[in-house]
């Protein structure tokens, strides 16, 4: 259906309703605000404008406010709702926060597969609940086709009880009833089943909940102009006790019914025990969104920590701010200008999936795409991965290799090895962890592809299957048993799996889909050690990965890689830690120009291993080198360092 099919009366009324919502006047302070922008010292800035302009001060204030709210919340327990997990202990301080990504699916019911609208609605409900939680942010993503979505929640880093509480509250059906008991008092925590509960509200009444800073009460502001005034009910029941329950009849709170004053606010007070139990927080979340129209359930991966490290302070805005003139802009030429708009859409999705929510873009008639991004152009650690992300074609294939597997990172010729399933059959994707704790990228296949995959894996146990990304094998697992559920995991290089940045990038590419036509980066204002690719040269999006193994020293080993081009124009360092995880050092280019390179690895056992390793009488230091070449079209370079007895070996190269 398109909007052109709307009945004239409906469309007329819709337009009239929207037009009636238009404010009559524009506040003069808005003009003063704009006028003050180019001249920040102007005295004409209105008070509101000062708040808007002094972003740095605002950030500090917001951070302090959020931390204060979090601090109030800590020390309390959980709301007593069915299915909630008990809280374990209470921390005494809230130094940091940790963001977790929770995944949900709208539960398919008999004869009904969730629609995109229902998935959107469920996301909106859980998002609102998560946002209402003090200290939680609710940004996530939706996969309408798969019926899944994710919600990001931020909790005190050292308070797993809070995470459990949020996970318990978010997917409850919710829905709150307000009424009275006609057969005597009732207590919080009791059920109205079998009792004479008379629910009354609400008849189009909208409540806007506000939790008092000390958590002692929830103020419900009643929207003015309701069709059935709340005050009518309050007048009829003045002096009685208002009962707030779940849809299932569990009593959440009690509050004396008083006729609301001019501010149309009804207050639900909480006892100290309720505050300690976390009731205000849970009630705030439930009051902040309507009931779920369709049930949802949490799905794997459960509670993915997005930032395993410490988040020092909350950010007041999702997008970083960049000094004027220092923002990154990128310009691409699409191969088929007719597909420029679709290409921009994919690029935009990738950018958003990387957490950049606001950016500028434009297309000219010749298929030239311009992106303006809120990333500092001189921040290579941010710009290079983003440019790789945007430049990747993003084509995924699952390729049977029979009994002839290839190494990770090898090129796979799809004309010789036809794909079993391609990326357009992926319905959802995310970051997960395997049994060893290594970070993996996990995706789910469509029902049709899952059936195909199930059949194939049943018939080919013991054979190899390559997960091929843009022609390069990312992972080549051996099928150990049939895989019936269509869930595929891509393991990363090294024992630690993918780095978080790499995993996020791969998920973003999978989520946004494949570019409809190849693109070439034709200009960029990014500062970098290597020149920007030009329109005449194919981009060398060489992804440098590394891992190390073979260290038998008790204290582990450390490795350092020195990448140096043949013409010695540049060099950079790559460190590999004792766990074998590559951690790029400052200035490490992750995009290499075509050419010849030498990589030198030095391996050193850690100081506490000097007492002698297990069967490792060799020197504590070893140096070894490897040469490799980069040609246009290369996608992944794998650097492998093995610390053996008496020497180290290094292999490095790109698929030929």
């Amino acid at each position, binding site marked *: 259906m398109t*909007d052109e099919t*709307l009945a004239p009366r*409906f*469309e007329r*009324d*819709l*337009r009239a*309703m*929207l*037009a009636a*919502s238009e*404010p009559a006047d*524009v*506040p003069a*302070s*808005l003009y003063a605000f*704009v006028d003050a*922008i*180019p*001249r920040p010292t102007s005295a004409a800035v209105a008070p*509101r*404008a000062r708040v*808007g*302009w002094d972003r740095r001060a605002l950030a500090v204030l917001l951070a302090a406010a959020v931390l204060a709210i979090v601090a109030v919340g800590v020390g309390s327990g959980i709301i007593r709702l069915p299915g909630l997990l008990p809280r374990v202990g209470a921390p005494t301080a809230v130094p940091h926060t940790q963001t977790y990504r929770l995944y949900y699916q709208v539960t398919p019911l008999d004869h009904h597969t969730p*629609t*995109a*609208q229902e998935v*959107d609605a469920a996301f909106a409900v859980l998002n*609102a609940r998560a*946002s209402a939680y003090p200290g939680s942010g*609710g*940004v996530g993503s939706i996969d309408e086709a798969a019926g899944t979505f994710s919600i990001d929640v931020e909790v005190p880093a050292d308070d797993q009880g809070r995470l459990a509480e949020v996970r318990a509250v978010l997917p409850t059906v919710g829905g*709150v009833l307000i009424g009275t008991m006609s057969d005597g008092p009732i207590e919080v925590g009791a059920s109205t089943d079998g009792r004479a509960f008379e629910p009354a*509200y*609400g*008849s189009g*009444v*909208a*409540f*806007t*909940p506000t939790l008092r800073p000390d958590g002692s009460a929830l103020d419900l502001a009643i929207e003015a102009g309701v*069709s*059935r005034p709340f005050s009518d009910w309050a007048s009829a029941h003045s002096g009685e006790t208002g009962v707030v329950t779940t849809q299932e009849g569990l009593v959440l709170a009690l509050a004396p019914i008083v006729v609301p004053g001019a501010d149309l606010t009804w207050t639900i007070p909480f006892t100290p025990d309720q505050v300690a139990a976390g009731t205000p927080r849970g009630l705030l979340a439930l*009051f*902040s*969104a309507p009931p779920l129209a369709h049930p949802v359930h949490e799905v794997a991966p459960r509670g993915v920590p997005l930032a395993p490290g410490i988040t020092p302070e909350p950010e007041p805005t*999702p997008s970083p701010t*960049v*000094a*004027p003139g220092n*923002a990154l802009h990128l310009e691409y030429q699409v191969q088929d200008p007719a597909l420029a*708009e679709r290409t921009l*859409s994919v690029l*935009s999705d990738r950018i958003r999936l990387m957490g950049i929510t*606001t950016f*500028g*873009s*434009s297309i000219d008639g010749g298929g030239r795409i311009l992106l*303006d991004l*809120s990333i500092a152009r001189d921040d290579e650690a941010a710009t290079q991965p983003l440019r790789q992300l945007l430049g990747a074609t993003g084509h995924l294939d699952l390729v049977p290799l029979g009994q002839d597997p290839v190494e990770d990172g090898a090129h796979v010729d799809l004309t010789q090895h036809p794909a079993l399933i391609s990326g357009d059959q992926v319905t959802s994707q995310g970051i997960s962890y395997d049994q060893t704790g290594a970070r993996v990228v996990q995706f789910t296949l469509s029902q049709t592809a899952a059936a195909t995959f199930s059949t194939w894996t049943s018939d080919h146990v013991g054979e190899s299957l390559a997960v091929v990304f843009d022609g390069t094998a990312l992972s080549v697992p051996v099928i150990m048993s049939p895989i019936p559920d269509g869930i595929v995991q891509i393991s990363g290089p090294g024992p630690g799996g993918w780095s978080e940045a790499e995993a996020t990038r791969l998920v973003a590419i999978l989520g946004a889909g494949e570019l409809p036509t190849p693109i070439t980066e034709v200009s960029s204002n990014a500062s970098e050690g290597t020149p920007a690719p030009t329109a005449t040269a194919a981009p060398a999006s060489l992804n440098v990965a590394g891992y190390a193994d073979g260290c038998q020293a008790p204290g582990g080993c450390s490795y350092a890689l020195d990448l140096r081009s043949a013409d010695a124009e540049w060099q950079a360092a790559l460190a590999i830690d004792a766990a074998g995880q590559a951690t790029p050092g400052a200035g490490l280019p992750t995009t290499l120009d075509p050419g010849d390179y030498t990589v030198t690895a030095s391996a050193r056992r850690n100081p506490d291993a000097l007492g002698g390793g297990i069967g490792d009488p060799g020197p504590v230091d070893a140096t070894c080198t490897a040469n490799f070449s980069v040609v246009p079209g290369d996608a992944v370079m794998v650097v492998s360092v093995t610390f053996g007895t008496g020497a180290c070996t290094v292999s490095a190269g790109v698929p030929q």
Partner: protein
Amino acid sequence: MSDRGLAIDEGEVHGRSATDAERGDAFAGLADRHLARAYRLASVILGSEPEAQDAVQDAVVVAWERFEDLRDRERFDAWFDRILVNGCRDRLRRRGRVRLIDIDGVPERASADDSGSVAERDALRSALSGLSPEQRVTVVLRYYGDLSLEEIADRTGERLGTVKSRLHYGLDALRAAYDAAARLPGEASR
């Protein structure tokens, strides 16, 4: 929208300004002329004038920070709208609100008026607030902003198919509320 189609003489601001003052003047000129339209659009999307003022101020801040990188200033309106719409959508996502269901079944109605459409418009207004942020933004841009589907896709950063889907489901929900209101007894006949 009353300011839609306002002719803007941008000749003096084309190209990169040589000095900060010129750049500031150029930005202020463009932003000033777009401000009323942006404020009204944000008000309709958000349903709140104070919040719309905050949203516009935030968008102005972001736009100024990135103004240096806007090469084609003839696209200022669309570029600014995109920043604004994204900000409004994020605000809607974070909004805390609940609407309870009428236990008694048939809600009371606002008094019928001569037009016979007040009830239906009330239902539309209520249903609009129940849409997802993305659907709400899409409906407002289409039927208040008079933007084409392609222009909405440009403003929201969504694919055209996604825009069509959001509009489809958003209108379905609005139509259901509208039709239900129109069927209630005691109202003016349709």
